[in-house]
């Protein structure tokens, strides 16, 4: 409470500087959470490693988000099953795409180890996790890679939508090709899914236009 001075706007007593600062910090918290449509601040239980984060951000050079309340999301894979025999893996992603938003761009970033000889042929399928589709697989994309290092593999955004649970499972199956024939020997591990080279999804979402769903139903 200021001594005798009067707040010019509301005629009440001005706040002492410390009290005003405390009020401003509370206001900032409310404003940020409201702006991000969060009810409270996220509690991060498994933050990505700084190296993985830096690498992913550098790779994307996150541009300015598309206008119209768009968002860009980087989601790192949790490796739930990497078969030792071949370079196949099951990648699990935990997404929190708000229902009011629409996914329109998706790329899977994979790191291919330098041990690659020849052409790596990769099929990416999605595992259904909804009750009626549990265990079913939908082929999303096929890619061929001939060089080691990072590869950004475009996925059909329509194939990734509609996961109420927020858990997305992608199955990778790869084979080595030499010429046009498939190499029979079991390929050694070719995909790098270690901590710092974890695969990640790059997604772009934006708010749905009001009434978009109605048009489709009609």
């Amino acid at each position, binding site marked *: 409470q200021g001594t005798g001075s009067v707040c*010019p706007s509301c005629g009440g007593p001005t706040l002492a500087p410390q009290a005003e600062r405390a009020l*401003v910090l509370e206001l*900032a918290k409310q404003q*940020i959470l409201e*702006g991000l449509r969060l009810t409270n601040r*996220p509690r*991060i239980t498994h933050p990505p490693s700084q190296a993985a984060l830096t690498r992913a951000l550098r790779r994307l050079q996150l541009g300015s988000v598309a206008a119209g309340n768009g968002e860009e999301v*980087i989601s790192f894979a949790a490796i739930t099953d990497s078969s030792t025999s071949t370079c196949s893996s099951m990648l699990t992603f*935990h997404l929190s795409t708000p229902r009011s938003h629409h996914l329109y761009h998706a790329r899977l970033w994979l790191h291919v180890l330098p041990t690659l000889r020849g052409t790596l042929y990769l099929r990416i399928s999605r595992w259904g996790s909804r009750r009626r589709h549990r265990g079913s697989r939908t082929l999303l994309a096929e890619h061929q890679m001939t060089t080691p290092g990072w590869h950004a593999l475009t996925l059909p955004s329509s194939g990734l939508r509609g996961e109420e649970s927020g858990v997305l499972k992608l199955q990778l199956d790869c084979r080595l090709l030499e010429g046009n024939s498939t190499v029979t020997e079991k390929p050694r591990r070719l995909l790098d899914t270690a901590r710092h080279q974890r695969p990640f999804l790059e997604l772009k979402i934006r708010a749905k236009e009001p009434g978009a769903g109605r048009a489709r139903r009609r």
Partner: protein
Amino acid sequence: TPTCESGNPLCCRRDHYVDFQELGWRDWILQPEGYQLNYCSGQCPPHLAGSPGIAASFHSAVFSLLKANNPWPASTSCCVPTARRPLSLLYLDHNGNVVKTDVPDMVVEACGCS
């Protein structure tokens, strides 16, 4: 818009820089390190009512004079934001995903009298 100095009773913009470290939020907000939380405060006497607060055009200056000479003061006018810009945030959501988004109208750039 004038930034508020002590003793200035008229409508102005009060600037506060909030460092996310001070909120204890640097573990989930990756970029930027903080932002300007500005707000508008100050009185709007009748002759300032309707003035945009910045680059008041000649018309609004004359309009203000007319109002000042008017024996019936206009209804109360408030000191409100007249220009705001978005804030770009890069943060970790509760799944540990990195999200980049622009939060609209987050930073008050100018104040004026309604």
